[in-house]
């Protein structure tokens, strides 16, 4: 028997998804607009996409964003994994409380505060050690890795906590030693969460504007910074095109991640 969903709930659902996705749809549609005016439809065209390929500033920014995204996501995931293992596998250790506070604070810290404090740190370091000399790709990478790490730790921790801890003991009992036990048992079982953590950190880094604005230097503008500065001069359809590409990239990543997680769940 099929039960009908009450009309009100249906309406709320449609409204909710509408609010989320209608603007995105409009933006995607207008990225194929041949007119230079954003709000006037003048026929289908892919010229803004072609123009993107010739816009050196945007392409450089894209390359930098990708570089920062990939490297900071990787650093975040490695450190996030270490934090997660410390919390889940070792119930008592010195400084556990401090670590748990320190590791979760950036989750709730306003980005402006994180960005400003990072900037102050980098300046102080430059004065004391001469490194980093000025702000650039490396400082953004470090800043992104720092807050991405906290998100990664949360994602991996959940999975690690769900994992049967007797599996590791069984492996040890059967003659396994570290790091072999970790590589043969733990890692394959928490791999979906590690991939999810990487994707999350990458996405956070890829679309971060606030922190990047604080710690970027001349010549190290990321894509969001460039887009934002372009918008201040007026929205061009080019922006719609690049945003559409960003949505496409992230959708593919998320889809890939979900399929991977679902596949694992299936096997379980």
């Amino acid at each position: 028997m099929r039960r009908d969903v009450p009309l009100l709930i249906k309406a709320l659902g449609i409204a909710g998804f509408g609010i989320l996705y209608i603007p995105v749809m409009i933006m995607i549609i207008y990225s194929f607009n041949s007119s230079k005016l954003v709000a006037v439809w003048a026929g289908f065209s892919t010229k803004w996409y072609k123009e993107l390929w010739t816009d050196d500033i945007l392409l450089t920014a894209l390359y930098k964003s990708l570089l920062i995204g990939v490297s900071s996501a990787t650093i975040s995931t490695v450190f996030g994994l270490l934090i997660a293992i410390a919390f889940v596998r070792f119930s008592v250790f010195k400084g556990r409380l401090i670590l748990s506070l320190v590791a979760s604070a950036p989750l709730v810290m306003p980005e402006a505060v994180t960005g400003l404090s990072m900037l102050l740190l980098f300046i102080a370091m430059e004065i004391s050690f001469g490194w980093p000399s000025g702000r650039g790709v490396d400082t953004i990478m470090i800043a992104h890795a720092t807050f991405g790490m906290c998100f990664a730790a949360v994602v991996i921790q959940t999975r690690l906590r769900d994992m049967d801890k007797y599996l590791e003991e069984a492996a040890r009992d059967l003659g396994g030693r570290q790091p072999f036990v970790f590589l043969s048992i733990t890692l394959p079982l928490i791999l979906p969460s590690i991939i999810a953590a990487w994707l999350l950190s990458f996405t956070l880094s890829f679309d971060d504007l606030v922190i990047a604005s604080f710690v970027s230097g001349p010549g190290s503008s990321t894509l969001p910074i460039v887009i934002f500065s372009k918008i201040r001069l007026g929205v061009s359809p080019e922006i719609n095109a690049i945003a559409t590409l960003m949505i496409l990239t992230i959708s593919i990543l998320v889809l890939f991640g979900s399929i991977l997680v679902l596949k694992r769940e299936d096997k379980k």
Partner: protein
Amino acid sequence: MAPFIRIQNISKKYGKLLAVDNVSFNLEKGELFSLLGPSGCGKTTLLRILAGFEITTEGYVEIDGQDMVDVDPADRPVNIMFQNYALFPHMSVSNNIGYGLKRASLPDNEIKSRVSELLELVHLNGMGERKPSTLSGGQRQRVALARALARRPKLLLLDEPLAALDKKLRSETQFELCKIQEQLGTTFVVVTHDQEEAMTLSTRIGVMNNGKLVQVGTPNEIYEQPQTTFVADFVGEISFIEVTVKEQKGPYWLMQGAVPIHVSTGAKLRINQKVNLALRPEKISLTSKSTGKINEFPVKVIDWAFYGAGTQYRVVGPGGINLKLYESHNIPSKSNARQPETGFINFSPDSIIILER
């Protein structure tokens, strides 16, 4: 000759809590020893100490003449079968069983033949490529057993091996487990809270309570000659009668409680000593008329339960003594038979267990 496995004065403290309290016992090669006790009695902690996962606060373990104190779980000639089996979900049955063999750096063809030998042993031929998630509970249990046996341990530890199985499967698996144990001659230590399981499986049972090993003996000794009220009460059904030793009369001791009871025992008793008499239900007979036997008194039946093979009665005797008794149905029981409301019970003077009070 030194015992095969020696467990000497083992204690384990968690903060102030004494989880295992000065436990010592020896095991002979090929024994099937059960650690029996209520949950939280320290039996699982003791098992984990033997496996090497817990470090003892005091005492030591010796296996085949080798001191185990500083030996890593990975190097101990001991394997454990976990209660939830802990099968590696991402590996096939064969890879699960072969995991320990690969660690022992055996050549591939030897691993293969050993794995198929083990699959045969646990009747899982042809299941090697399946994932644990596609197996039934009983099959998983057998994979776990095969995996634990793969490295030919000198001592196999089994944590509640049958707890996750349903009743019918449990008794089948029990026999299977005994058969495999006899066939291989491996020493088994089984942890269980199920006294029936301990009785049917083991050559010897160690009963634990509050971290202490309170009695070690054969299933028969544990059942028929419990040394403490706890053991008597934990293992099987039993009723207690509080009495005082009155006098020695011929071959019997006369006990004074709500009713006079004659007991024949080799135990040393003092006059006026206060003791508990313990009676197993099947040792008591219920008759409708007085038979004039020794230790007979009238009772009122307050409750009864049909068990198929027999019926259990709860009766109240003079002075309010409560007793459980069990009558097996030697002849088919009739569905319309009326249960007696009153009657007489009697029990033999040598079927009574005397416990200190």
